[in-house]
């Protein structure tokens, strides 16, 4: 547990000292999402209708953008070898690095999401569901992305490979993330918002649990392979 916190705090400190890494994903998210109203024209109903899809797709791309640096710096400067040789279990270390990644990428996206939702004329019920869905969904994005990030270490131009590996795996999160907000927006009675979105949120939770289980095992195996 101490080693887990040690890795998380080191990665957070690294991210805070290299602010460009920290702000890149969230700025990409805000700027890209802001382009859509300009491209589609100022039609409040249309924008509110397509907002869930746009927010999720841009969030997903923002996470994708940050995945390469998750393990690459450690791989290149030899830290990864030391991490594998250290007494910390590698599975725990992978989880710690993913948590640090989520705190520096996923969490800022969640904090920026209400701003985008306002821009798209989303009502408050839908916004609440959006936030819940992102809290459940973005950790899965970091976890699934970490597998691809570990698998592409050592491959030439690994950064190009990551989207090819990861985007198909992000589809379920995208479907249920958008589905939850759509269900909330389409519910006629005020009380039914949560009930309607519930199945989608539960499925997002299920994806999170499965990736929490798979990522440490697959990630650690891929890391061991990468240094051979």
């Amino acid at each position, binding site marked *: 547990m*101490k*080693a887990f916190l*040690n890795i998380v705090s*080191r990665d957070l*400190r*690294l991210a805070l*000292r*290299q602010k460009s890494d920290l702000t890149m994903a969230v700025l990409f998210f805000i700027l890209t999402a802001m382009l859509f109203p300009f491209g589609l024209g100022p039609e409040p109903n249309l924008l509110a209708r397509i907002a869930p899809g746009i927010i999720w797709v841009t969030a997903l791309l923002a996470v994708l953008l940050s995945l390469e640096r998750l393990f690459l710096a450690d791989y*290149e*400067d*030899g*830290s990864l*070898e*030391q991490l*594998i*040789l*250290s*007494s910390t279990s590698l599975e725990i270390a992978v989880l710690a690095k993913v948590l640090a990644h989520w705190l520096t990428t996923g969490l800022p996206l969640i904090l920026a999401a209400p701003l985008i939702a306002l821009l798209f004329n989303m009502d408050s019920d839908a916004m609440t569901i959006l936030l819940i869905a992102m809290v459940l969904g973005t950790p899965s994005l970091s976890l699934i992305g970490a597998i691809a990030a570990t698998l592409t270490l050592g491959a030439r131009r690994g950064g190009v490979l990551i989207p090819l590996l990861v985007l198909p795996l992000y589809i379920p999160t995208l479907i249920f993330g958008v589905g939850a907000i759509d269900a909330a927006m389409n519910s006629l009675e005020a009380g039914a918002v949560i009930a309607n979105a519930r199945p989608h949120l539960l499925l997002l939770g299920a994806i999170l649990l499965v990736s929490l289980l798979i990522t440490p095992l697959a990630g650690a195996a891929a890391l061991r392979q990468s*240094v*051979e």
Partner: protein
Amino acid sequence: MGSSLFQGKDLTCIRGGRTVFLGLNFNLAKGQALVLEGPNGSGKSSLIRMLSGLVRPRFGKLVWQEQDATKDPEIFQKHIHYIGHRNAIKPVLTVLENLAYWSGKTKDDPGLEDALDHFRMLPLKHTPANLLSSGQSRRLTLSRLLASERSVWLLDEPSVGLDVASVSLLEEVIKTHRLKGGSVIFATHSPIQVENPDRLNLQDYSPLYNKELLEIENDEESWI
């Protein structure tokens, strides 16, 4: 010499389809210094990485204190300290923060300052590591050896980038380590003086340099 601590039997390393070395044996006792020699590409780094558990031997056995550890390198990994070509230093962290992270200690632990002091790095402890010269980075990496106690040191060209004074600091540290019963295996091209070292020349086991082995290698391939 005392009883065997770490042993390799008939080790073979194949990387990228090429046999790096084959049929290699070694025996490391407590307090022993084993110097790996051989020209470039004869497999010194590969052997060190194999002994650290990063690379598994294709054939042969690794034995740690009479226990077969070929399949389970974690048995010996907690006792070894590997220092490779790369320094594993984070440029945005300070010298002290880098050392604290790898030794798993907090920054105020006195052991860290002692370790830095041994390699004359104490005045630089609050300097961000990206301002260090390559020799200073190497000294920071070497001070990790003192910050966390491990009984076997595996050093791959530890003296690269070090000036003469720093090399003698390293020699001193190795000497103290051996007096305390620790062992060291290192590969080097520049002379590092240690008392009565055992030498292992990898040229003898490398098909690249030893033509007799080439035939064995070909036999083995047809056999596979």
